[in-house]
C-alpha cells in the first residue's frame, strides 16, 4: 500500500486498485488482513468515507470479506479472481489504446505483431 495517488482517476478506485495490486504481487496474501479504512485515510490524508468506498468495491466483488470486529481480509481465491477480471478488461484498457495510437502513427497490424514477436529478442 505504498503507491502514490494520482489525479487521473477517482481516489476510491485507486485505493481498490492498489489493494488489488498488492494482492497480485503477494504483498498482501490471501486470508491476511488489509489496512483499515482509518489506516488508509491517515496514510493518504484522504477522507475515511473515500477509503471505505474503495474497500467496499472489493467487498462487493468478493475480493475482501469482513470479519466482524477485526477488519477486512483477503478472500481465498482473490488473486485468481483479480487476474481473471483484469484479463477481461485487458482488451478495453490496453489493446484499444494501442491500436488507436498505432493507427494515428500509420503503424500496420503486421508491423505491430512483428514488434510484439521481436520484443524479447
Amino acid at each position, binding site marked *: 500500500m505504498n503507491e502514490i*495517488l494520482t489525479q487521473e482517476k477517482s481516489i476510491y478506485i485507486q485505493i481498490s486498485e492498489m489493494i488489488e495490486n498488492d494482492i497480485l504481487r503477494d504483498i498482501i496474501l490471501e486470508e491476511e488482513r488489509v489496512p483499515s479504512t482509518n489506516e488508509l485515510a*491517515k496514510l493518504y*490524508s*484522504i*477522507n475515511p468515507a473515500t477509503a471505505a*468506498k474503495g474497500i467496499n468495491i472489493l467487498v462487493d466483488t468478493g475480493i475482501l470479506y469482513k470479519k466482524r470486529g477485526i477488519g477486512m481480509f483477503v478472500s481465498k481465491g482473490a488473486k485468481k479472481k483479480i487476474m481473471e477480471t483484469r484479463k477481461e478488461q485487458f482488451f478495453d484498457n490496453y489493446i484499444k489504446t494501442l491500436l488507436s495510437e498505432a493507427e494515428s502513427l500509420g503503424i500496420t497490424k503486421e508491423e505491430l505483431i512483428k514488434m510484439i514477436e521481436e520484443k524479447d529478442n
Partner: protein
Amino acid sequence: MMELIECKNLCKNYKDKSALKDVNVTFEKGKIYGLIGRNGAGKTTLLSIMSAQNPASGGSITVDGEAVWENPNALKKICFSRELNVSQTSSNGLGAMKVKEYLKIASIYYPLWDKDMAKKLVNEFELDVNKKMGALSKGMLSMVTIVVALASKAPYTFLDEPVAGLDVIMREYFYKLLVEEYSETGRTFIISTHIIEEASPMFEEVVMIKNGTLILKENTEELIASAFHVNGKAEDVDAATEGLSKYHEEIIGRSKGVTVFLKNGEKIKEGYDVTVQPVNLQQIFVALCGMGA
C-alpha cells in the same frame, strides 16, 4: 432532530457592499467540508457569522436546531479558529500577548478543551509558548490556529486558511493530523483553503462561494467524476459537447478547450476526434470562478 448547522437566507452587508447574498446551506454533523472561493468571496464572513462572531444582516443560523446568536448553549459546540495576521495581532493588543496566554484564553473559552492535545501539538510544532504573538511568523501563527482548532474539541470546528504560510512538510502533517482527529472523533470540520488540490482528498463535500453567493455544494468525488475537459478542433468540440453545461472556453487558433459537467446520464458524444480528460477540483474551481467565468 438532525444534527447540523443550517443557514437560511443569510445576508451580510458592509456599508454599501453586499458580502453574502441569500445564502442557504447546511453542514451535516460528521463530515469534512471544504469551503472554497476566491479572495473576498465571503468565506471568512460566512464562518464568522456561523460562529456568531459577526452579526448577520438578515437570515438565520441554527446549530442542531438552536439559534447561535447570543446562545452560549449553541456556541459551545462551535470553534472558529480565525486566521491570524501580523497586522491584526499588533493593532489590537494580541501582538503583545504570549502564545501561552493566547492558548490559556482558548482553554477557558472552549468548554471541551483538551489540554494534553494542545501540549502535544505545541511540542510537535516546536512552538515557543513564551514568544509574543506579534513575533511569530505567518506559518507559526497558522500553527497556533491549528492547535486552538484541534484542541477545542468543538463538535463543529471551522478553520480559515489553516495552512497559510506553512511549508509543504507542515501542510502534509496538518492534513494527517486532521484526518486522524476526524477518524477518531467524527467531529465536523469546515476548512477554507486556497491550496485546493492538496486538501481536496480530505473533503467529503465541497462548498463553493462566488461574490457572496453559494454556487455549489456537492460530494467531492461525485463532482470530480462528473467534470471533464474536452479539446480538439473547435467544430468537433462544439459537436461533441452540444447541449452540455460548458464552462471556461478557451480558443487558440482552430483548437478549443472547454470544461463540461455531466448531469444524470449525460454523455460527451462519441464519434468526434476530441481528447477528453479528467479534471481535478482546482481546475473545476478555475472553470467556475476564474477570470471571465
